[in-house]
């Protein structure tokens, strides 16, 4: 068999478009080629390069769970040339996908532990993949707590799923919006994510904390977790540096001697301590 061209994307059909929040959409993608669909496998935490033909490629995580077969989902915000190109596509149209790339959340190692998910804004998608993965294999884990915050009520993504999670008896769900971001019907918390984490004060005992969000949120959440007794090997996050190739060659996501696209995007805080913080 001749050598594969890494840069040649899979062709995907947009099966479903969900408007999540202003400028934020989720696409459900199906492989156009059945053999490719059959052979495709990924794990929670991995990402891909999504193509809008005519505009280019953009990097986002796979937001659906590997336990849900037959499709993948991505959630993105319309911010640049590629994402606006993607956002203008309709159900039934074709886009490209390369992947899966990067490392995975060590879900096998987490069996029998409590899981604490802390997410902010548009960083819920990478975590959604893990959350559904965990919920679909619910018996593998003990308590599951989700703390999710966004700027305003409008900016919360996966609104129907947030409800589904909070309705489940086996999940503790806390949603919050930044002060001033609430509306008249808001019943959740009001406050920045780190503050709410401190308030909810989950136990560090036998718990893994997965933190995803803007750098500023992560920066202020880590000390809170530390105060709650979390050790560095109990805290996980994902990094999102600028990427072009996704396979450790183009040089953009090089941090220290690591490539975020190959050695990440998933890092435990213990691993993060080994690479220079100013470079991510």
């Amino acid at each position, binding site marked *: 068999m*001749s*050598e*594969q*061209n*890494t*840069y*040649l*994307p899979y*062709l995907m059909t947009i099966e479903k478009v969900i408007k999540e929040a202003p400028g934020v959409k989720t696409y459900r993608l199906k492989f156009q080629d059945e053999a490719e669909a059959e052979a495709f496998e990924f794990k929670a935490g991995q990402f891909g390069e999504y*193509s809008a*033909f*005519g*505009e*280019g*490629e953009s990097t986002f995580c796979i937001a659906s769970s590997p336990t849900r077969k037959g499709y993948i989902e991505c959630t993105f915000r319309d*911010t*640049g040339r590629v*994402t606006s190109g993607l956002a203008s596509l309709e159900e*039934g*149209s*074709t886009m*490209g996908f390369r992947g899966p790339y990067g490392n995975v959340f060590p879900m096998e190692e987490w069996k029998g532990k409590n899981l604490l998910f802390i997410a902010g804004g548009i960083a819920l998608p990478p975590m959604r993949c893990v959350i559904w993965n965990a919920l679909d294999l619910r018996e593998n884990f003990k308590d599951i707590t989700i703390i999710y915050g966004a700027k305003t009520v409008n900016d919360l993504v996966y609104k129907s799923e947030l409800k589904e999670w909070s309705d489940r008896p086996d999940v503790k769900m806390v949603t919050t919006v930044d002060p001033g971001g609430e509306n008249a019907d808001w019943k959740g918390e009001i406050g920045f994510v780190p503050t709410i984490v401190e308030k909810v004060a989950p136990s560090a005992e036998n718990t893994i904390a997965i933190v995803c969000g*803007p*750098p500023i949120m992560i920066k202020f959440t880590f000390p809170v977790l530390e105060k709650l007794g979390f050790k560095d090997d109990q805290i996980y996050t994902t990094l*999102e*540096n*600028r990427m*072009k*190739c996704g*396979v*450790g*060659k*183009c*040089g*953009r*996501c*090089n*941090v*220290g*001697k690591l490539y975020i696209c*190959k050695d990440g995007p998933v890092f435990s805080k213990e691993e993060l301590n080994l690479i*220079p913080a*100013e*470079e*991510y």
Partner: protein
Amino acid sequence: METKYISQSGIEQWFDAIVTSGKRVFAPVNSRGQVDFKPVKKLSEVADEYIQTTQSIKASVYPKAEVLFSYEKVNGKVNLTDFDPESVPETVLWKVHPCDAAGFKPLSAIFNWDTTDKLHNAHLAKTSVISFSCSAADESCFCTSVNGSPGNTAGSDIQLTMLPDGGAIVEILSPKGEALVALSPSVFVADKGEKKEKYLVDLPVRFNLEEVNAKLNKAFNSTVWKEQSERCLGCGACAFVCPTCACFDIQEDAHGSKGRRIRCWDACGFALFTLHTSGHNPREHQSQRWRQRILHKFFYMPERLSVVGCTGCGRCSRACPVDMNILEHITSIAKQ
């Protein structure tokens, strides 16, 4: 490996035979006041008196801009046309310096360390390298400090060492080299027992690579980066003339319903190279970008890919508009 002798007229004959075989031949040509690799048909076109070409031969196996694939949108569907390795012509690189040929190893290490790179490998497979050992060097050259030498045969299929009589010692180093010899077998005669080393330039080792590596291991937070990089303008000249720099960008060339995805050279020295869409830039200052360049070549690559990302060709020092001299900077780091 086999060593032969070729006479001056033999070289001419052989060169003509290579051209006649239909292979594309690139050799250093002096034009516009610069010596650079260009397609040539006659040996007389090849430049003589020069120390180094301005650009490396990197472009022959990693073009400045290359089509990764092309696409066409038809009735809401997309048809892809893959890169065709057969579209790459058989190429012979003539009169390559050993430091350039040695650059293929780090370059391929980057392109193939995990997933393999179909395009790079296609170019590599179709390229034969005839290197000439160096009888001269200048103050920017330092191959001997980075595991190379003026007679280094790494990356070459054939190496010629020119002799005073106009002929050359021919080292045939690979099957590709043998195939080139086979184009004109009669001009290659028995080796005359000349020692190659006698004709190589003497280039003292300027720094100890392991020492540099050990220093760099602890240098991330050093003030040296800011001190050295103050005058750096943040252009990509050093990266683009470098035989091993491989950072690239992927871009779209769209024309209505048709288009192609293009990979083109990029440089870690550019201010916007690492800029996130959010506006956050992990390497905001030139000093951070300069650090990245040096650490990547002399620390990360040896650690990760077991190959140093520098062949000592000195091109970056020669090309830099503000005299960011890599040898000077590395030597000063080694002394720290």
